[in-house]
């Protein structure tokens, strides 16, 4: 038998399929695991496990911990009892050790803030749903009928390791585990051969730098900057290199690798390397175009707040995200306010901080929702607004709030979720999630469901996952 017929070369495959990688998960193409064929286990083939509702995710993560009482979870009783010790109010039982037991302390935490701190800003009702949103987010408020708000989140790490936890589902002391974006990247095939399928934008703190972990670095997000000159690491030559000379060189290494393929027809890593170079070249060509907004209308740019110095940074990231989604990128993970503990970490001066933060994100987020809707993309794009934890009903340092894991809010929009709904609730002072409480992996499970993935089917041999890792999809908010 002619060997080269039995094993079509990478080139032949790429040219015959036209779309190259299309439909296949990167893991399936680049998988080199020694367990491989002999164990009978195969990596995901890139097809969803059932019909998907969403194709892409825009994951906006607010680093530092958004105060739920100054954003999406109004608590009038907080104002009523403001200044009182919680133990002197009808809510004294929030401190029962049993309820506080979920906390897993790995590094010191401050003493619990116990004097109630009134709501620092007003709320008003928006839209047909009449859901209340804080005055710091008027434009998001105007879009409230698109949102599915979950007001009953909880987590277990009272420190900013909870950022990792929100991405991976595990407390950082358990070790390092793949993040949601990595699972999706691992499970689903690509929609565009020219772009990385998993992109990370914004500063990530050290404890949250990697995604693939035991799934492999292949599934790490590709860090991207909204800088046309240097959007990716090593995106352009770091030393002057004449373009024509470079073209000749690239052509030559292409040719040489192709000749090598004839020399080593069964060398799988050679095939993968050729494919990886092709993707790299295409990424280099395609990415700058995506973050070049010159073809966007002024109206669109304005919609994202690009004309507003406060909103421009985040607006550019979100506009780029829409453009990536348009081109078929699966998962865009944006860290807002990253660096240090995070901009949302309002231990002091909470009120002015929230006003400022609102001016940074309100317009861009509203712009994204409106733009996606106008383009008919919102149904297939899941927009997530998340944060590692909420903030204490009690005051800290006189004018701030401390970290709070027992109840907080995140919301999602689009991607086949219900619109204009509130799910779950904290108690009257925003302390405990009391109605339909959800751990962070329930958000993961909901997103995976909408993306057509069954998390248990993604298990990797030898990597045991706990029940808690899978979470449960929040059926009540799925349309």
């Amino acid at each position, binding site marked *: 038998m002619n060997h080269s017929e039995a094993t079509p070369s990478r080139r032949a495959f790429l040219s015959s399929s036209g779309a190259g990688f299309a439909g296949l998960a990167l893991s399936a193409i680049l998988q080199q695991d020694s367990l491989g064929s002999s164990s009978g286990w195969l990596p995901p083939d890139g097809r969803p496990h059932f019909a998907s509702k969403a194709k892409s995710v825009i994951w906006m993560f607010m680093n530092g911990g958004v105060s739920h009482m100054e954003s999406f979870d109004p608590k009038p009783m907080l104002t009523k009892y403001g200044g009182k010790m919680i133990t002197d109010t009808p809510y004294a039982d929030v401190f029962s050790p049993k309820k506080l037991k979920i906390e897993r302390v790995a590094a010191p935490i401050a003493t619990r803030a116990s004097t109630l701190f009134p709501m620092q800003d007003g709320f008003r009702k928006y839209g047909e749903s009449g859901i209340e949103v804080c005055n710091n987010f008027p434009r998001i408020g105007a879009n409230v009928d698109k949102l599915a708000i979950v007001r009953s989140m909880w987590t277990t790490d009272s420190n900013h390791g909870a950022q990792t936890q929100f991405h991976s589902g595990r407390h950082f002391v358990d070790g390092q585990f793949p993040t949601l974006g990595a699972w999706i990247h691992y499970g689903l095939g690509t929609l565009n051969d020219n772009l990385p399928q998993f992109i990370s934008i914004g500063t990530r703190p050290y404890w949250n730098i990697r995604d693939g972990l035991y799934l492999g670095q292949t599934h790490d997000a590709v860090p991207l900057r909204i800088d046309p000159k240097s959007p990716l690491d090593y995106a352009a030559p770091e030393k002057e290199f004449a373009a024509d000379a470079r073209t000749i060189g690239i052509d030559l*290494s292409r040719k040489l690798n192709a000749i090598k393929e004839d020399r080593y027809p069964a060398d799988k890593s050679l095939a993968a390397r050729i494919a990886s170079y092709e993707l790299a070249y295409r990424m280099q060509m395609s990415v700058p175009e995506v973050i070049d907004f010159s073809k966007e209308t002024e109206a669109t740019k304005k919609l994202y707040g690009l004309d507003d110095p406060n909103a421009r940074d985040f607006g550019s990231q979100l506009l780029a995200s829409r453009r990536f989604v348009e081109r078929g990128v699966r998962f865009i993970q944006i860290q807002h306010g990253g660096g240090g503990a995070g901009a949302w970490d309002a231990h002091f001066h909470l009120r002015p901080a929230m006003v400022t933060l609102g001016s940074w994100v309100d317009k861009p987020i509203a712009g994204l929702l409106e733009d996606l809707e106008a383009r008919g993309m919102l149904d297939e794009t899941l927009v997530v607004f998340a944060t590692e934890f909420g903030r204490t009903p009690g005051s800290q340092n006189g004018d701030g709030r401390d970290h709070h894991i027992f109840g907080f809010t995140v919301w999602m929009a689009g991607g086949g979720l219900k619109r204009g709904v509130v799910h779950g609730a904290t108690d009257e002072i925003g302390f405990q999630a009391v109605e339909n409480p959800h751990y962070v992996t329930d958000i993961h499970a909901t997103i995976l469901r909408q993306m057509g993935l069954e998390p248990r089917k993604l298990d990797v041999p030898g990597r045991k996952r706990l029940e808690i890792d899978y979470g449960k999809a929040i059926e009540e908010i799925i349309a």
Partner: protein
Amino acid sequence: MILVFDDKGNYIGDKSNVLSATFACEERQPAASAFDAAPTHHPGRDDRMNRRDAAGYEAEATGGARPFVHSLAAWRRSLRPAARWRRVFTASVALAVLFSLEAIASAESIDYEKQVKPVFAARCKACHGVLKQEGGLRLDTGALARKGGDSGQVIKPKDSAGSLLTVRITAQDPAERMPQEGEPLTAEQVAVIRQWIDEGANSPADEKTDRDPREHWSFRPIVRPAVPQIANKGWVRNPIDAFIAANHEHHELTPQGEATRSELVRRLYLDLIGLPPTPEQLQEASSDPKDDWYERLTDRLLESPQHGERWARHWMDIWRYSDWWGLGAEMRNSAPHIWHWRDWIVDAINSNMPYSEMIRMMLAADELYPNDLEKLRATGYLARNYFLFNRNLWMEETVEHVGKGLLGLTMNCAKCHDHKFDPIKQADFYRMRAFFEPYFVRLDVLPKQPDVSQDAVPCAFDGKPEEPTYLYVRGQEANPDKSKVITPGVPELFAFKELTIKPVTLPVQSYEPERRPWVFEAYLTTAKDSLARAEKAVADAGHKHEAAAKKLEDVVKSAPTDDKARIAAETAVADASAELHASTVDLEAARFEMDSVNKRAAAMRVLWVKEDGEKDNAKLAEAETSLAEEALRLERRAAVAKGLRAVTDLELRLRKADANAKPALDAELKAARDALSKAEQAAAVPAKDAHYTPLVGAKPSPIRFHDDFKDDPPLPFSKQSTGRRTALADWMVDKRNPLTARVAANHLWNRHMGTPLAANTFDMGRNSPPPTNPELLDWLAAELIDSGWDMKHMHRLIVSSATYRMSSDDKGHEANVAKDPDNVFWWRRNTIRLEAEVIRDSMLSLAGTLDPTRGGPPVPTDKEADSLRRSLYFFHSNNERNLFLTTFDGPMVTECYRREQSVVPQQALAMTNSRMVLEAAKPIAGKILASLKARASTVDDATFIGSAFVELLGNPPNAAELQASEQALAEWRKLPKASGDDAQSYFVWSLLNDNDFVTLR
């Protein structure tokens, strides 16, 4: 819905999946039932846990396993009085069971394999299985279950009510109920078993009993297998090949021929020293006419100090080397100056220290060589696990990775429950922990550097020799079983000898490290040096002042009316004067410091003489008191002088500062003045109420286990070390230990060959795939032991095998490809995607720019871009990793038992665009050209191309490659000259982007 967590705070979910989560670590339990619906933190549950464990220990202590007796009454009679207290009854639980029994009845008949056997396996077999037969009962097959135990049948087919098994699993009294460990069986499980019995307790006739774990390949004693007799004798170079050839012959595979000489030369260089040959070295090895060229080259490379640098990195992966990390400047993990351990590894490999000795030193050098800093460096292996905040996590990591890295055992799986696959009981996890329980980390003063923040050796030491180890119920730190202190020990299956733990009496220089001769020397030298510097500064300032005064004199003389010049000159004089004053104050501080160090040293020496035997010598006592007072006085004077120096310095800076900087400096000055006044106040306290600060020879690393933002009190250095880690190390490297040598041999094979013999390098237990060639692995392990754990011997053996020397090519071997496409039986060599460090180091080495400096502190992250040091020396921690190296799968510090060999687009971008690659191309081309020109007057394109191919890729080009290359060179030459590099450099850049540059064929 009821929100449920386990006691560790893990969310378990809503009430419907409680049990499955509790045990989910290894195996998911069968579906939950009505009974499971009780929230996990039901108080009764924890009570039961405690009682159960207490019961277990008691049974163990008295050596009595309760027999499985016929009836409840008989069992009650057999109950020892001491155990009666345990018969506390949790009514609700039992009622729930009884109640649900009737509720769950199935119309379909029971499938033994699917429904019964898994329950026995998960819940019963630990005590009633192949390893252990409590009461003589085994439940690993249906037939054995029907056979019964010491007290007869436990199953009466078709009569579940009359079957003892049913009675025991539904017993209300927790002391009677089976299983004794863990939760009771669920109502559904009980119902299934009852129905199975009622249907006749049938099971397949051909059901096999479980295999005895003692028979598991890696748990058996290592016996050197006979070298197989094979037909293809001509191919065999050493016994390794006989084992490989036996498989070839069995599977009808034809071994691939030998690689080309240039491939072999590149292979040996990269494998043994991590650097490619220079053109001259390549030339020399390629033209060596002697038959033993390969062996001589191997020897030469193994003797090269670069061999240690290359192989150290392999072992650093496995031993989890990490520089320190934390939050900002707060050190939370690993240890500062841990690079001393890295240098020790390099040195140990280069001096061919036996692997057994390496393990002993890493685990226990502080007990074996308590005064030898060179050897103490080895305990960085333990120091690396340091974690500022939480002792439990520190200990868990230690046990986990001693298990995985040195023993190939997943001890960590037994943290919460008995291991599901291997003969490791939950208590074994804590027994292993007990070896490490006493150890902490300290920084030992090195010659010439008394300040441990600048440099010191991180060492392990038994800081809490009396610290008890408790078993944590279900692995929960908050739930220690304090009824029994766990003593150090190894899993029973591996207890081939009585473990004797002898406390080690330490030399005084170990627990009073300030007595080490170099310690005072370091303080004195440092003080002397700063004194010399201060003296020089005063002299310099004096000269400057003189010059300024002279200048002023000149100005006044030459231009008496030039006010501007005069004022400038006067200012210069004033500045110089202030500087002179400051340096004089500084000199005074340095003198006092010098005197203070001298005096403290003297006082401490006298103290030692007193302590060491002349306790009653009144004269000595008197001398000591007077020296101590003098030392204190000088120390205080030094402190005041230092305070004054700080104030003076700030005053000087304030004078020169612009308005913007002034407020900050003002604040600093205020603080300095406060400090000075404090020092002055302290100096006024009567000497009898104070004591000088002793000079220290080691400093314990801070710990903060109490969540109160404060360091815990520093740990004292004890006169005795427990000897536990020495005992563990000796057990580990005992010839009879079946694991240690197998694990090491497998790592050696993997790092040479790119694929291990046993696929799971950190888990050789029963849940891992067996090795592809177990006899070969055993033979290698035996060879490792019998050679005296000689690593270089093993390297030599492996690289000299015909197996190693094969070509990785598969062309022309279609029959082999069809039979063994994954090359499981080694009919060819596997290609290896080179390690990140090798890729970077190769480029620098080929360019001739590699900085060969060995050892020392790591290159800090912000200096790496410009550094030409070997990659091994880059700062490498959980938080800080070099981007280029990470792109090529540089190791994770948390765990890297095997290197990933990924192929991703980011690697292509790094190779095409990074400054390092772009800058390397030109000098690489230059080196190749220079080498060619040394041998021939003219160098044509074909020659250059051929040489570059061999040099960078390991093989000469074929005709097509040559033609494509020549064509490209011609095209580059057509370009306008302006565009920088020459055609040859461009060409080298293309070759650096060839698959084979990052591949070892």
